[in-house]
């Protein structure tokens, strides 16, 4: 259908971004293809250490899933997106395909080994999340392709992750967010992935922050170096959510807390984390 209808057609997943964008006339598709009635597109499965999510799986289904709980950072994300009503409709595949710079999923999934399965008339291909998100609102999807599945590799036993996003109130996009995944050996951090959300056109991998933690003890010194590097790596735009300076400070604070959460989880603690809002 996408091939037939051309550029004037858009796919409708959960609709929690697309429909508001259409009301604002920011999106003006002549045709909508509703994916909600296609069976078999919503599932959560685990096999051989890989969690697979159907593209039309709702945020609320991930929030309530015991399988998704096995990677706590996924629960942090799913449970805090917007509000109950939006989580009941919005989908993980739709969120990734939209690639809003303030979306939650891409930031979180970039700290993990994630593959996005893209399905088109020519067949299926698998794209790592880093290559899938190209730019703001731009993905590796061809016009006549859609996201069919998201596959996430479970981190090893010494791994722990945490996601924190700050928003002014529940229904809005976060002002800034930070996702951290650590592999610990005792108190020494062996591997680190730190991704910053809402502070650039795409989620930003803060590689200097990661270097600041790698092979170090997670103490005050390493953490403040990582926070400083994250602030430098961020590239926020001033908007109604805050000035660039404010967002830079905020993302640093979130990185600090997320490192602490990831460390505790990697060391086996069970803690609850999610979006922070008034």
């Amino acid at each position, binding site marked *: 259908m996408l091939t037939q209808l051309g550029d004037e057609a858009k796919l409708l997943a959960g609709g*929690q971004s697309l429909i508001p964008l259409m009301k604002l006339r920011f999106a003006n598709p002549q045709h909508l293809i509703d994916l909600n009635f296609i069976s078999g597109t919503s599932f959560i499965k685990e096999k051989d250490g890989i969690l697979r999510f159907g593209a039309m799986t709702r945020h609320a289904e991930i929030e309530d899933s015991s399988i998704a709980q096995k990677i706590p950072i996924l629960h942090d994300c799913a449970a805090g997106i917007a509000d109950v*009503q939006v989580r*009941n409709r919005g989908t993980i595949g739709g969120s990734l395909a939209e690639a809003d710079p303030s979306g939650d999923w891409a930031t979180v999934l970039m700290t993990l080994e994630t593959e996005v399965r893209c399905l088109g008339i020519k067949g299926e291909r698998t794209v790592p999340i880093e290559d899938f998100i190209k730019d703001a609102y731009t993905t590796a999807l061809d016009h006549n392709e859609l996201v069919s599945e998201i596959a996430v590799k479970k981190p090893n036993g010494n791994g722990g992750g945490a996601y924190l996003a700050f928003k002014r109130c*529940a229904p809005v996009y976060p002002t800034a967010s930070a996702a951290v995944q650590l592999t610990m050996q005792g108190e020494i951090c062996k591997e680190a992935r730190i991704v910053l959300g809402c502070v650039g056109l795409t989620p930003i991998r803060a590689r200097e922050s990661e270097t600041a933690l790698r092979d170090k003890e997670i103490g005050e010194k390493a953490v403040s170096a990582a926070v400083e590097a994250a602030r430098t790596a961020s590239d926020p735009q001033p908007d109604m959510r805050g000035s660039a300076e404010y967002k830079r400070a905020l993302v640093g604070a979130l990185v600090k807390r997320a490192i602490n959460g990831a460390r505790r989880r990697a060391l086996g603690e069970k803690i609850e984390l999610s979006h922070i*809002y008034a």
Partner: protein
Amino acid sequence: MPEAVQNIPIQLKVNGKLHSLNVEPRLLLVEMLREHLDLTGTHVGCDTTYCGACTVLMNGATVKSCTMFAVQADGADLLTVEGLEREGQLHPIQKAFADSYGLQCGYCTPGLMLATHQLLSRNRQPDDKVIRKAIAGNTCRCTGYQNVIKAIQLAARNMDRV
């Protein structure tokens, strides 16, 4: 100009009653409820997926009916505020909101009560934190949330006794 579009036949249950309608594909669910079925208890507040005044239950889960097309509810089972009372008797949630002064102007109340409905259908003993999270998608601009939370706690207790 876009060419004229054909209406689409849909069938859905609203408050237990089956309806067959022919609707424009662009018609929002909230407009269908208000304009086609005269169920004006579901309100349009912000129309931007923010305020939750248009919240209804679809197959037991809350949705913002301003952020769905009516055709997407084809085959669904909807509950709106009009479906809460039974034979002239207020639903325990409605009674609790009245008894706890959980409303002032009442514009957000239908949405809040349906958000409460989803919460209490899954958790009969929600603590304060859980309640606050459950109604985070419903904005009240006059009474504030303290009495709303009291109302939900009261509703939980009353429904437990039923």
